[in-house]
């Protein structure tokens, strides 16, 4: 199982092959021709793994989206591919019942990604269609989005775990971790931070114990694993990212690696969907750059392409021409297509910051909040933004940022922002604010009457208070807010991903752990972070004791974000890796940004809670 390519990268292609095999196995579990009904959210995931042709090669005759109405088709076999949610099960049950009423004889397979949940059976039983359905598990776990990013593509995870306390997804995460260690061998060093990370770690140990494999493996290809809760740093996702990739995600939305650009970007009358990953040379070059450093490169590249075309014009001999057309021209065309889009996209991004009258102020306010200066100005800027009914989710980002960095707002300020928000966007958003409060994103400073509390309550309160004043203390201890100007063109500090204003906390935590900073400072900070911290090294298996421990793989670090990560964090760690000689690989429940985070919290009483 050689999974390391020449550069020392892990080969995620193997995961893709396994995922494809699993999909094929699932499809073949229902022999012969059948209709496929796929949950819309999963379309892109399946695209990344297989594509329609593969589905057809394995018996898919017609492909439908899972919708309320049963697909109109006469095929005698139908396979549903969906997440194991109650909602999906009910829709499918309705399909089956209406098919039966219509006198259709169909056999149904329900393939659940990544596992069958108990409620699936409960609902089918209750709906009286349990006997009509064959359940199949399609164990698609981590999907390779790029040559260093794996994702479970579960954007709902953050809300379900942190807001509702739903632990149903812990087991799929654990399975993904166990599978990774089957391919890349047992990871010897493991660090975790946070509630969810602790659960994942404990369940992993339980299962490893059952399977009898807790020992380290000398062939390990990943030296260190970090399991980190999103909750550890909620400030980062709320900040406006300033790398190209981060901004593309915030402006256009990257979904499963795909990004759809509108007509204003493509300069044609069509939208273009582009796969953004390392295969796109232009993108690979600019993705981690600070936005101010993108245009110059694109310009130079455009000139380069132009001169390439010019070269073609000057060719006189037919042999050279043939060579040019078959080799260079193809590349040039590919490059110019990608250049057009990236130039268009960066233009649009820059335009946004100049055209929107207060976007500059917005960014300034954000920076002031992070630095902890000018609280009053920031507050009144937010208040005015609310009163003007400016974009709700952008304003909420600032509100949450202000609350997080001041460890909850003073009662009076909290109430002012609360009522102005509700007055501008509707009182029903009380539900939204309630969600934000429960997730600790927008909170009021507690004023508790100490006299009424028992001793243990006081202790708890003191601990809480300690954690509450944590943000400033951590910033100070780890210098998260650089005092000097940070180089944005040739960055040497991770904070460049936020224009040198803030260093993503999780990235700093990883740096400090790997660099083995004096354990006292590490402990001091870790104490202030939410959830437990745990670091341990596996005992090596007997055969490993003799062999040399120092190998390149010990520099390969896997960071698993539980609850989502941002492109800014990925860029920061890529930089850290380049500077310190580490190779970072990323796994996450999903890629997120401030907009997606806030949108997941929004509830105005319509639809499902």
């Amino acid at each position, binding site marked *: 199982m050689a999974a390391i390519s020449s550069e020392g990268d892990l080969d995620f292609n193997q995961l893709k092959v396994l995922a494809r095999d699993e999909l094929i196995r699932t499809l073949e579990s229902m022999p012969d021709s059948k209709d496929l009904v796929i949950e819309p959210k999963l379309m892109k995931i399946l695209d990344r793994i297989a594509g329609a042709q593969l589905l057809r090669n394995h018996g898919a005759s017609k492909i439908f989206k899972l919708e309320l109405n049963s697909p109109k088709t006469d095929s005698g076999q139908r396979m549903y591919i969906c997440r194991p949610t109650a909602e999906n099960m009910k829709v499918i049950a309705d399909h089956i019942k209406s098919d039966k009423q219509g006198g259709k004889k169909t056999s149904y397979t329900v393939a659940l990604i990544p596992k069958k949940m108990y409620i699936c059976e409960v609902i089918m039983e209750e709906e009286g269609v349990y006997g009509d359905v064959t359940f199949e598990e399609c164990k698609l776990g981590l999907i390779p989005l790029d040559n260093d990013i794996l994702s479970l593509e579960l954007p709902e995870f953050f809300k379900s775990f942190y807001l*509702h*306390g739903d632990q*149903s997804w812990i087991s799929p995460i654990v399975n993904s971790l166990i599978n990774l260690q089957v391919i890349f061998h047992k990871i010897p060093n493991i660090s975790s931070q946070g509630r969810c990370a602790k659960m994942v770690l404990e369940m992993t140990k339980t299962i490893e114990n059952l399977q009898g494999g807790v020992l380290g493996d000398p062939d390990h290809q990943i030296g260190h694993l970090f399991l980190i809760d999103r909750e550890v740093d909620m400030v980062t996702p709320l900040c406006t990212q300033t790398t190209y990739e981060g901004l593309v995600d915030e402006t256009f939305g990257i979904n499963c690696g795909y990004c759809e650009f509108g007509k204003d970007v493509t300069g044609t009358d069509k939208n273009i969907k582009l796969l953004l990953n390392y295969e796109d040379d232009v993108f690979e070059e600019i993705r981690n750059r600070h936005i101010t450093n993108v245009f110059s490169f694109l310009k130079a590249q455009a000139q380069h392409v132009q001169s390439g075309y010019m070269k073609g014009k000057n060719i006189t001999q037919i042999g050279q021409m043939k060579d040019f057309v078959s080799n260079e021209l193809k590349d040039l065309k590919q490059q110019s297509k990608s250049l057009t889009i990236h130039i268009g996209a960066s233009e649009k991004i820059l335009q946004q910051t100049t055209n929107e009258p207060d976007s500059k102020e917005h960014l300034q306010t954000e920076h002031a909040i992070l630095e902890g200066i000018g609280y009053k100005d920031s507050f009144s800027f937010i208040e005015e933004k609310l009163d003007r009914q400016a974009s709700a989710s952008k304003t909420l980002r600032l509100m949450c940022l202000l609350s997080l960095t001041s460890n909850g707002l003073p009662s009076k300020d909290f109430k002012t922002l609360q009522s102005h928000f509700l*007055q501008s966007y509707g*009182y*029903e958003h009380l*539900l939204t604010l309630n969600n934000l409060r429960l997730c600790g994103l927008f909170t009021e400073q507690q004023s508790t009457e100490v006299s009424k509390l028992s001793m243990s309550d006081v202790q708890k309160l003191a601990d809480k208070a300690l954690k509450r004043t944590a943000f400033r203390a951590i910033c100070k201890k780890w210098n998260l807010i650089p005092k000097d100007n940070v180089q944005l063109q040739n960055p040497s500090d991770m904070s460049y991903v936020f224009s040198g204003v803030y260093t993503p906390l999780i990235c700093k935590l990883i740096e400090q752990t790997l660099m083995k900073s004096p354990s006292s400072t590490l402990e001091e900070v870790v104490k202030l972070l939410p959830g437990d911290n745990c670091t341990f090294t596996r005992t090596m298996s007997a055969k490993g004791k003799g062999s040399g421990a120092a190998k390149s793989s010990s520099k390969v670090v896997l960071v698993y974000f539980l609850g989502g990560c941002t492109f800014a964090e990925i860029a920061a760690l890529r930089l850290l890796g380049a500077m310190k000689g580490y190779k970072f690989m990323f796994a996450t429940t999903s890629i997120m940004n401030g907009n997606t985070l806030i949108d997941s919290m929004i509830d105005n009483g319509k639809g499902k809670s």
Partner: protein
Amino acid sequence: MSVRYSLKGDEEDEGYWNQKEKRQNFFDDADDENEIIDWTGTRIEEFTGSQVTSARGTNKNASFTKPSRPVEIANNFPKTGEKISKPSFILTTSSETVGTKNLSKPTSSSASSLESAVKRDSKLSHTEVSKLYAEVTSLKRKLQSSERSRWDAPKVSDTIIRMVMGEPFSLEMYKSLPDKLTLLDSAIEYHDGNSITAIVLFLKKTLKNSIFISELRKRPVAINHYAVYLRSMGDEEVLASQLQILGRKEEAAMCRYRLTLQESSPQARYQSMKKCTDSYFEGSKILHRETVLLREQCSLLNKQILIEGADSKASRERKPPFADCPKEAELYFLPLITTLYYCCKYHFNQSQSSISSPESLVKEFNMSEKQYVMTAAKACANQRKWADLDTLLAPKKWIMKTKKPTVGFDRIVGILLKAKAPNDILQKYMLMMDDTTKRLETAKKYKIHSVVIETLKQMRDLRGLQNYRTEVTYGSSEDIQLQTLLKNTSIKWKT
């Protein structure tokens, strides 16, 4: 012993025995079937066959009470034994463990049948017979244990592991409360949400509601999963009432509130919102703030109903302010600020006493000056009512309260730009912007030349003025303005 035979007559626990009786009949049917098949085979096969039936009988007990209590196995045994007397006799003679004492009666009655059987098969030596006995015993044991493990509850820890590993499992056999709770607690310990949900639903199904609730209340994680389940089933009514009894009053109240928002008719929503506030929010210390806000929402809806009633009538009758422009959308459920905008748009200059006047709304909801001025300015700008805007922004009003205007002119200019106000209006308000750098920047961006020139003059920036000449059309009024300034020697330019 006779007491043990008479199942019905037992005084210890009526329900227990009655239940067992029912099950017994069920199994008896199965036994009959077994007889037909099994008795056609050889003797040894008969033995095993009968063992199956008797073992099943044993398990009838096991499924009701703690497994493998020899007394009860014995209790049950004779019933099946009577029906198929031969095998049961063999069983008892060959095995001491099943409780020979209890079975002494059938043994004596059928002892001769074994002897004659052995005699008939005269070819079998004594050792062979004892070998067979030994084999029978061992097979019997194996069967008994496998049958028992099939119907008995397996160890809780085993079942939990099966659940966590995603293997098939069954919870039906866990009848005792401690077992059920151990199941739940171990699932929580393993952090597996899917198992927790499964066990919670099992408890819900098999426990009396009061016990279910009181046990769940001790386990917040279990409540979370129960709530997730109810939420996913889409019945918020049930969710709210269950959360209420589970002691999560605040969460339940928010659920109830959410339900009121499903009402699509304004009057119905108003009523149900009021009711919800009164019954689930009012009086709660933790929900005090929410209560205030809900009351506000109720008043707003009430106000909207009143205004909408009057205005839609006026609009139908083409009366002012809808004489020439009929009302567009309905006012219901719009946010407060949007309602204020509506009032500014249609009822700007109405007296404070009128219900639809902006002032009355501002007063009733205790809105800030800032909220009012910005919303009113937007309404004026969008309707091109420049005189009204002037009155609104006239400094007189503000001097009374504060020195600085409530809303900076940069904001007003922002509103005007968005409303695409004509240049002269923009010019006028741009010049009121305090921050000259910002003013210059904005004026340049939107090419309001006279403001640029005026600002540069104020900043005494000669170089800037000279450079700006290229932007201005030759001979235009701005050009003349610029030329005059450049010639003016009384200005002390910055160097």
